[in-house]
C-alpha cells in the first residue's frame, strides 16, 4: 500500500515534540525543560543516560530524578527502545533530512558498524566517570538542538550544521546509525522490547523496497532472508517506513514475542 500512513503519523509526532520543546517560548507552561530532563503536565521526565551520567560524574543521587528516568526507560522499552530515535529525537529528523540531501549530491559511502553505538555508550560512561562531567550532555547534538530550540543557543546550531555536512559527505546516517550513545542505550533496551515488526514471508514478493528505505538495512535484510517472523534487532527504530512502502503488506507492527529464532 503506498499511502504512507506511519511516516505521516511519525512526522506529526516528531514535529509535535519540537513544538513541545519550543512551547515555553510561546508562553505555554504545560511543558518545561528539554529532552535531557523535562516536565510534561507535571509529570517529571528524565533521560536515563543523563541520569546515569550525573551519578557517574558527581555521585549526586536524586532519587526522584532516577525514578523518572526509570519510568522513561520502561516507556521506551514498551515501544521498542529506539522508538525514541525514530519518533522523538530531533536529530534523527535532521539526519533524515541529510538522507534526502544525499540524493541530490555525490555522497560518501563510509560504513561504520551499528554496534559502535554500544561502545560509544561505554566510552561516554568512562569519560564521564574520569572527567567528572556528564560528557555526553556537553557534546550531544540532541542537547544542542533542544537548547537551540528552547533557549536560542545560537552557537550550537553551527555544530548541527557540521553534523549534517558529515552525514551527507562521509557516511549515510552516521550519527544515528553508528555513533549516538543514547541510540546505543535504547538499542540495548530495544532488544527485549515487545513492540516489533512482524514479517509474513508468504506475502513477500522480495521486491526489496523495504531494504531500500530502511535506515538500518543490515538488520532488516538478514531477517527477511531467514524468513523470521519478527525483526528482533534493537537497532530497528520502529520507524515503520518499511511497513508503509511494502506493496504486499508483508511487514506490520506487532506486539509481543515469538519464540522463533533468527539473527538479532
Amino acid at each position, binding site marked *: 500500500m503506498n499511502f504512507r500512513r506511519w511516516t505521516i503519523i511519525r512526522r506529526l509526532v516528531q514535529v509535535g515534540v519540537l513544538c513541545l520543546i519550543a512551547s515555553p517560548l510561546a508562553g505555554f507552561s504545560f511543558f518545561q525543560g*528539554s529532552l535531557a*530532563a523535562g516536565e510534561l503536565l507535571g509529570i517529571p521526565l528524565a533521560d536515563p543516560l543523563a541520569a546515569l551520567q550525573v551519578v557517574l560524574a*558527581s555521585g*549526586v543521587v536524586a532519587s526522584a*530524578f532516577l525514578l523518572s528516568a526509570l519510568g522513561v526507560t520502561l516507556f521506551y522499552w514498551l515501544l521498542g527502545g529506539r522508538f525514541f530515535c525514530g519518533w522523538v529525537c530531533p536529530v534523527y529528523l535532521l539526519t533524515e533530512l541529510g538522507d534526502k540531501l544525499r540524493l541530490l549530491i555525490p555522497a560518501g559511502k563510509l560504513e561504520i*558498524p551499528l554496534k559502535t553505538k554500544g*561502545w560509544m555508550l561505554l566510552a561516554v560512561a568512562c569519560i564521564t566517570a574520569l*572527567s*567528572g562531567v556528564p*560528557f555526553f550532555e556537553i557534546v550531544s547534538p540532541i542537547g544542542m538542538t533542544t537548547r537551540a530550540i528552547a533557549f536560542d543557543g545560537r552557537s550550537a546550531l553551527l555544530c548541527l550544521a557540521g553534523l549534517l555536512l558529515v552525514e551527507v559527505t562521509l557516511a549515510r546516517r552516521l550519527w544515528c546509525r553508528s555513533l549516538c550513545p543514547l541510540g546505543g542505550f535504547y538499542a540495548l533496551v530495544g532488544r527485549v522490547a515487545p513492540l516489533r515488526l512482524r514479517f509474513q514471508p508468504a506475502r513477500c514478493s522480495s521486491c526489496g523496497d523495504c531494504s531500500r528505505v530502511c535506515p538500518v538495512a543490515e538488520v532488516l535484510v538478514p531477517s527477511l532472508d531467514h524468513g523470521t517472523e519478527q525483526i528482533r534487532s534493537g537497532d530497528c527504530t520502529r520507524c515503520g517506513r518499511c511497513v508503509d512502502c511494502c506493496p504486499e503488506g508483508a511487514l506490520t507492527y506487532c506486539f509481543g514475542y515469538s519464540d522463533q529464532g533468527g539473527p538479532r
Partner: protein
Amino acid sequence: MSGAEEETKRVSRRHFLKGSLALPLALTVAGGLLTVPSLRRADARGFYLRPPGALAEKCFLGACIRCGKCVQACPYRAIRLAETDAGVAIGTPFIIAREEPCQLCTDLPCIKSCPSGALDKGVTEVEKVRMGTAVIIDRENCLSIRGLRCEVCYRNCPLIDRAITIEPRHNPRTGVHTIMEPVVHRDKCVGCGICEKSCVREQPVIVVQRTPLPQQDAYEF
C-alpha cells in the same frame, strides 16, 4: 554452515575488531584528552554566578544536565545558559548580575525546578543561599567611601543591615561630615548581585565574587 558463511563471519569479526572497537577506543582517548583539560580551563576561566543552591562548581558541572528548566522557572529571566565558549560549562545556567541579578524569590522556583540536584533542594530560605560574596573591589572609586551620600548598594540590599551595613566614620576632608562606608558581611551575604546591578559607577565598584574558602587559623580571638 557453508564456507561462504564462514567467510562472512571472519570478515565481520575482523570488521568488528577494526571498526566497532577501535573507533570507540580512539574516541574515548580523544574525548578524555579533550574534556579533562577543558574542564580545568573552565575553572580557570573564573567565576560563574550560579543560580541559588548551586553545588560547589566542580560538583555542579557534574550534576547539571544542561536541561534549562531553571531558566524557564526564573520569573525575572535572570538565569541564562552558557554558550559553546564556556567549554564544559556549555548549557549550564548562570547569572550576569550587572544585567539582571537574582531577585531571591521567597519560594526559590529555580531550585524547585532542578531535576538532577545540581541546585540543592536543601536550600529552602533565601538567607541560606550562597551564590557568592559581594566585594567592594575599587575603594578609590566608591562614592560612599569618598564621603558622598550614595550607599545605593546598601539601600538596595535585600538583606539590608545584615549582609551590608553602614560603618560611619569622621570625614577629615570636610571636618563636619560622615563617611558612610558600606561594609559587606561574608557570613550573611547571599551573592544575589543586586548591589552589583545597582552601583551607579560606570564600572561597578561592588561585584559578586566566588566566596573565598575559610582559612584554617590556629589563632582564636
